[in-house]
């Protein structure tokens, strides 16, 4: 009897000495409420912590794979079969065991669901035994490992409490937290999962407020939230009782150019394809040369960001030398003149034949930062005799009309080079938002295919980089200049001074949830 009492006392002492007990509940206003609920098969968990579920592998600060549910993993020599050994002590939050059957079900179902998790390369997933799962691919794909790090495991549909239609609203997983209540459009309340296999999270309860920008800031000023996402424009006005935390990112913004001339073609939904101005390389190069990216960062991001020159600046699959010395209006004017774009006195615009150098620069009207980027970049390009017309549209209108014929202010940025494949491979031309400009270059396709088929990450990175610029061609600013990248955003948060977020990594696209990636490292530093 004495031993349990001593153990209990010791545990109490340890618990009391931990700063965690100083505060049990955190209130977060970081946005990012998922429209389709918390269903990994439909895309939940692609950014940040999946909260309710666990993944086979986790991503380290250096983006390398670390153990998660799986303790061991290997890829066959033909690069078609992944074999993973699972931990034996994992339980769902209803205290039932998680097995290889659940993992196989998750991957097969996600491949069928066709959600945000791209499992098109998966042939099948099968449980070898209770703790071993085998994933077979149709073709070698180096980026498949990203799905092992992002796809949360759900319970097999055939078991009790298994996956079903309502899963997104009543998620059951083996992650660090379990859902208590979700009032859509208002708040999400989660509590510690007592059966989580990893170290217990410091905070017993998290409350996520889904408030708009103004309400978030008001709540922060009133001291009602512990962590709030702050737009760059207001990053200098953090409430006095809070501190500013900056998370660097590859969350970029840039101008995607339609690459094809307008020949009357239409996409499947009837949206027109092509733009006779942006299809001209000289125009795209001139825009790139006119953009003063430092000023864009200062004006549109209030200094909280850095210039961008590619989709993944600073990440291992990006070319280091891919930069353009800008602004350089003299060089831009020379290029335009050489390409036959002559300036006319009457309106100051350049013309090539009857074609004026004028095109719409469309941005989603709900996004104030993109609006400012569009307006400022249009101002920077104007002295060249090119008129970019900033045009705000709703997303559905963009898809219906603008997607393939307007230059568009887009934002991307990922922890996976798979995004580069989507953005620039011709097989994805017209596919969703990624390659909506119908970019196509055979040499780039070959580099991208070679990267996917590579034996290891290092070899793949060489091919990813060559796709950007191989000394002869590429999708980047030295080659086809299919984009004018503008800025990489810094994600700014206002946090309670007692909240230590630990070492934040580099955030991908999407302000908000990415900050939760290291949720288990968060600490409370006050008594």
């Amino acid at each position, binding site marked *: 009897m004495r031993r349990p009492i001593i153990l209990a006392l010791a545990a109490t002492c340890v618990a009391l000495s931990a700063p965690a007990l100083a505060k049990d509940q955190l209130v977060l206003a970081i946005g990012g409420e998922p429209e389709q609920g918390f269903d990994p098969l439909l895309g939940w968990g692609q950014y940040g912590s999946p909260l309710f579920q666990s993944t086979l592998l986790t991503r380290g600060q250096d983006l390398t794979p670390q153990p998660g549910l799986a303790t061991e993993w290997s890829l066959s020599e033909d690069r078609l079969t992944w074999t993973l050994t699972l931990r034996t002590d994992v339980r769902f939050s209803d205290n039932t065991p998680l097995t290889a059957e659940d993992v196989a079900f998750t991957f097969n179902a996600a491949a069928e669901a066709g959600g945000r998790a791209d499992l098109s390369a998966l042939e099948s997933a099968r449980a070898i035994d209770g703790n071993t799962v085998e994933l077979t691919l149709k073709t070698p794909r180096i980026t498949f490992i990203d799905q092992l790090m992002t796809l949360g495991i759900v319970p097999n549909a055939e078991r009790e409490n298994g996956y079903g239609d309502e899963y997104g609203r009543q998620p059951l997983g083996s992650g660090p937290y379990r859902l208590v209540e979700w009032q859509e459009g208002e708040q999400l309340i989660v509590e510690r999962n007592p059966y989580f296999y990893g170290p217990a999270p410091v905070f017993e309860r998290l409350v996520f407020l889904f408030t708009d920008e103004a309400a978030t*800031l008001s709540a922060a000023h009133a001291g009602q939230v512990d962590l709030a996402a702050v737009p760059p424009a207001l990053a200098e*006005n953090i409430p006095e009782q809070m501190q500013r935390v900056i998370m660097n990112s590859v969350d970029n913004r840039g101008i995607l150019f339609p690459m094809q001339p307008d020949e009357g073609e239409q996409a499947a939904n009837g949206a027109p394809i092509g733009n006779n101005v942006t299809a001209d390389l000289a125009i795209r190069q001139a825009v790139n040369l006119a953009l003063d990216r430092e000023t864009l960062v200062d*004006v549109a991001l209030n200094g909280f960001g850095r210039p961008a020159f590619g989709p993944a600046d600073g990440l291992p699959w990006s070319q280091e030398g891919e930069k353009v010395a800008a602004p350089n209006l003299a060089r831009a004017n020379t290029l335009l003149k050489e390409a036959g774009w002559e300036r006319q006195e009457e309106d100051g615009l350049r013309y090539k034949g009857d074609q004026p150098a004028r095109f719409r620069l469309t941005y989603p009207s709900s996004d104030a930062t993109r609006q400012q980027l569009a307006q400022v970049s249009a101002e920077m390009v104007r002295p060249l005799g090119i008129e970019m017309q900033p045009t705000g549209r709703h997303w559905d209108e963009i898809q219906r009309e603008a997607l393939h014929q307007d230059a568009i202010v887009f934002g991307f940025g990922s922890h996976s080079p798979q995004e580069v494949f989507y953005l620039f491979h011709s097989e994805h031309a017209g596919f969703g938002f990624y390659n909506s400009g119908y970019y196509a270059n055979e040499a780039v396709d070959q580099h991208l295919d070679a990267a996917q088929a590579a034996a290891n990450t290092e070899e793949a990175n060489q091919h990813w980089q060559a796709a950007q610029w191989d000394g002869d061609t590429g999708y980047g600013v030295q080659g086809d200049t299919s984009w004018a990248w503008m800025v990489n955003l810094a994600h700014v948060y206002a946090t309670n001074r007692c909240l230590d977020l630990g070492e934040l990594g580099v955030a991908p696209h999407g302000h908000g949830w990415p900050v939760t990636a290291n949720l288990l490292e968060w600490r409370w530093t006050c008594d």
Partner: protein
Amino acid sequence: MNSQPRLVAAGYAGVFGLLVLLLLSSSLWLGDSPLHMQFEARLMPPSAEHWLGTDALGRELWARTLAGLALSFGVGLSAALLGTLIALSLASLAMLSPILDALVSLLIDTLLSVPHLILLLLIAFALGGGTQAVIIAVALTHWPSLARLLRAELLSLRNSPYVAISKGFGKRQGFIVWYHLLPHVLPHCLVGALLLFPHAILHEAALTFLGVGLDPTQPAIGVLLADAMRYLTGGYWWLGVFPGLGLLLMVLAIERFASMLRKAL
């Protein structure tokens, strides 16, 4: 009317006339200053150099406010005129036959029973936003009250002895409406349009503020106020105060002038 009210009326008329002149001519002398960016002078408070301060892109707020008021004035005027035209047309139509009268009355009652801000939002959104959509949406939601007033006026006029005489001479309903009834309600239309005007301006600003109105790159008052909202917690008060005050003064001036005119008529 004794001399003091006459003086006040002349004062209102003068202020209104000046306002119209100022706003209608503003595009001539403002040039591109409402859109001109000064990256080195962003979010500057009001000073001798920047009269009403500057916005986040370094654009002068006085120029943007004036341009916004002119834009709102134009949109409000168009919407008020279109709304009045619809009201007058339907009220006249109601005079042609009892069935048409019943239909018009039903339409008026139906529209008046729906909160017009919701209708306004729905129409503006369905038309895809923009200047035309705002004008149409405001006009389509603001005619029923005026139409009801005009219909009542026309009904009382229809029972006048001179209309009975005209009927006795065998004139048709259309002739009677056009030559005998409409000329008498035109002054009511003028006042109705003027009273509709400030409503139209405020609703244009509201729609634009909510993101279904004018293009956010235009210096409309609704756009300025929506932009100002983002910066309020940062202490940049001038971004919201001056456009808001400008809108308030313009609406008050028009409303006062319209009320005065109504009393005079």
